[in-house]
């Protein structure tokens, strides 16, 4: 792989420049490094950076065009590296401010790294928006946003309405929150207000293990264990449903996944409530639980609402649990023991396998992704806003 070799050669040239730069700098000062402006190592770094950085940047540019031109232009890359080294070596003199130059370059690299976050966001938005636009050219947006039918067919003529998917997503998230919020909140209250430090030290990490388990494990848990259990013990005896994949299965398992998320966020928020509020309430004669429900929780409420919104955004964007646990039926129904499908599930099923990027059936995944992105981003921004506003109150 010559590109890899090009990179290696450029790096080797850089290392050579490092040595030559130091030597030349010392020689220019008559081997007395006190006469140099900077320590000799900075002269070395200066030459190395001027050798390697422009050459590597050029290589990246050519790779962005395509692989062939990067191969063809490999000699040019090396020429750039050598020219850079020559230029930098010629520049070295006793008075040359090598440290300032090197620090300037490093500062540039630091700034470049910090913009990658912005580039990622731009990349996400561009890839979602462009493909969504080409989807809406092929498929009317009214039928996408207000359509009640989801029946993709690869021979064309499919109905691609988002509402059944949105319904499934929100229904499953609701059940997940109904499970996670009470359990997570009570666990957090108990741990921060009642538990002895020793018990807290044991229980808190144990609950946080739940957060470290990959979602695919929860997905398999839903598919193999929880689904059949719910079917055999609840759905079939009551005649509510026949399948193991259901809204309830996915919601329940997702709820378990969200418990540590809700509990650790609430824990932080409850701990941030000033002790003086508790002392005042206890001093007036209220019991511990009265203090919590009447004083601590109202004070922590905005933060807890923020935590719940963040959990909701997690639930809406969760993929593996619903792919394995919720089924594939796109329908709007109130029965939690029926299979339904979600936005994330459909993105996976439309984009795995062979894709034809000119058909609305594939491109719809990008419109779904855009819907999901906007939905979760909105929830996050709202949650962060609420949490930030709340924090200002006590600081």
């Amino acid at each position, binding site marked *: *792989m010559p590109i890899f070799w090009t990179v290696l050669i450029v790096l080797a040239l850089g290392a050579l420049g490092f040595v030559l730069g130091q030597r030349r700098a010392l020689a220019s000062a008559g081997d007395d490094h006190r006469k140099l402006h900077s320590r000799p190592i900075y002269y070395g770094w200066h030459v190395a950076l001027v050798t390697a950085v422009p050459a590597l940047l050029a290589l990246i540019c050519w790779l962005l065009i395509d692989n062939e031109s990067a191969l063809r232009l490999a000699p040019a890359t090396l020429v750039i590296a050598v020219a850079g080294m020559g230029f930098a070596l010629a520049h070295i003199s006793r008075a040359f401010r090598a440290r300032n130059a090197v620090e300037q370059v490093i500062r540039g690299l630091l700034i470049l790294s910090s913009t990658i976050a912005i580039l990622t966001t731009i990349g996400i938005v561009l890839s979602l928006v462009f493909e969504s636009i080409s989807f809406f050219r092929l498929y009317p947006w009214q039928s996408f946003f207000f359509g009640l039918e989801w029946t993709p067919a690869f021979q064309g003529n499919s109905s691609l309405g988002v509402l059944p998917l949105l319904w499934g997503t929100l229904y499953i998230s609701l059940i997940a929150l109904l499970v996670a919020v009470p359990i997570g909140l009570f666990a957090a209250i108990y741990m921060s207000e009642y538990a002895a430090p020793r018990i807290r030290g044991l229980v808190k990490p144990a609950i946080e293990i739940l957060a470290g388990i990959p979602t695919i494990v*929860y997905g398999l848990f839903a598919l193999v264990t929880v689904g059949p259990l719910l079917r055999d013990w609840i759905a079939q005896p009551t005649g509510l449903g026949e399948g193991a994949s259901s809204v309830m299965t996915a919601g329940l398992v997702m709820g378990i996944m969200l418990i540590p998320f809700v509990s650790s966020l609430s824990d932080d928020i409850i701990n941030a409530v000033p002790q003086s509020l508790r002392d005042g309430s206890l001093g007036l004669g209220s019991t511990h639980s009265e203090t919590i429900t009447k004083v601590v929780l109202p004070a922590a409420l905005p933060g807890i609402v923020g935590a719940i919104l963040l959990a909701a955004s997690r639930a809406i964007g969760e993929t593996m649990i619903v792919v394995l646990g919720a089924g594939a039926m796109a329908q709007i129904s109130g029965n939690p023991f029926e299979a339904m499908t979600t936005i994330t599930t459909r993105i996976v099923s439309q984009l795995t396998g062979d894709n034809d990027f000119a058909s609305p059936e594939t491109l719809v995944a990008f419109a779904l992704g855009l819907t999901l992105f906007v939905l*979760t981003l909105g929830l996050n921004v709202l949650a962060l806003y609420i949490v930030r506003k709340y924090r200002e109150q006590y600081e």
Partner: protein
Amino acid sequence: MTDLTQTPAAIPTPTPAPRKGSLMVADKATIRRNRAEARFKAYGIGAICIALIALVFLLFTVIRDGAGAFQQTYVSIPVTLSADVVDPKGNRDPAEMAKVLTMSYGKLMDAALTDWMAANAVQIEGLSQADIKGFFSGQASAELRNMVLADPALVGQQVDATVLASSRVDGMFKGRVTDESAARDAKTSSQQIALARAMEEKGALVTRFNSDFITNPDASDNRPEAAGIGVAMLGSLYMMLIVLVLALPIGVAASIYLEEFAPKNRWTDLIEVNISNLAAVPSIVFGILGLAAFINFMGLPRSAPIVGGLVLTLMTLPTIIISTRAALKAVPPSIRDAALGVGASRMQTVFHHVLPLAMPGILTGTIIGLAQALGETAPLLLIGMVAFVSTYPSAPPEGLMDPASALPVQVYNWATRADPAFFERSSGAIIVLLIFLLCMNLLAIFLRRKFERRW
């Protein structure tokens, strides 16, 4: 309290409403309030118990279902490699022998099993030829063929072959296949079960540790007994290397800039808001980004670890940046002041003093970010990592472009296959995945305990 007891007269005695009975006897309101208190506390304990029970139940089912993947049943019988089947030309030339199809070796195996039954006086009523053929894994005849091609001297001899039994026979020893399920299943029969019992008694069936599960690549739908996680582990390893090499330096550089150098202005605010929002973007959206940007736009190959690694890098960057910034923030300003005071430049202050002191925190955050990336599945599905890959990728750097799988994706892949034997493999792969995650988290905890400083 001592003041109170010594000078009771100094305190003006309040005049409460006359209270009937003693303070020692709780009145109705107190009883009600105490009950509410106890109930509230019980809710808390109940919530914690539910969470812990869910955790234990989850881990228990995974281990129960997956432990079987580490055991495998092998058939160990003498096989006669008759020369007229494996070497029809009779010249022991491996090139010529390679023309003999795997199927012929299958017939040898079937004959060997029939011979074994005759030799050991095992008779099973109604045992058909198909039952005998279905007794072996599809992999068994291929293994035998490879053995012969590697050593042509074996031709014409009788060798003691230990080959994979089919997944149904294997399932019998793991309790997955019973007489009832065999009657319903077209691929197995109660005669096969009887034969397996007889063979076990005579020691011709052995169950031992399944090292192939760790090293083998994935296998096709009808031979779950041969499927392994070798390629998936290698693919995951490649991706983790890419994430480490890219995300750690970029994340640390970005954090240094934001924490130590960035001026307080709109641009910095924008970057910070961006990072906190990116941390909460659903992982599947990163998959869409990978598909659109890296595969469709930049033309990188599908299913390649390089694309997976890049996507996971972008995903873990916010985690690493957030924890690195916290670690940098924890270094007290006095360190910076001292370094600046003796004449170091700001860059020297950061790289010579602040960064080394923040390193344990940075490494802990990086390991936790890597653990997250290792368990991530959804974005990898979209960039084609779910494809069936049965060959190992070559060594890096070329291997980064070869198709590979990843551990969590392999779990998903097996979970969606029809044969229940794959569920066991799936849970087995989860056990391996969880062991890796456990080790990474323990390492993070160790680093934190050992090197963390409190100022």
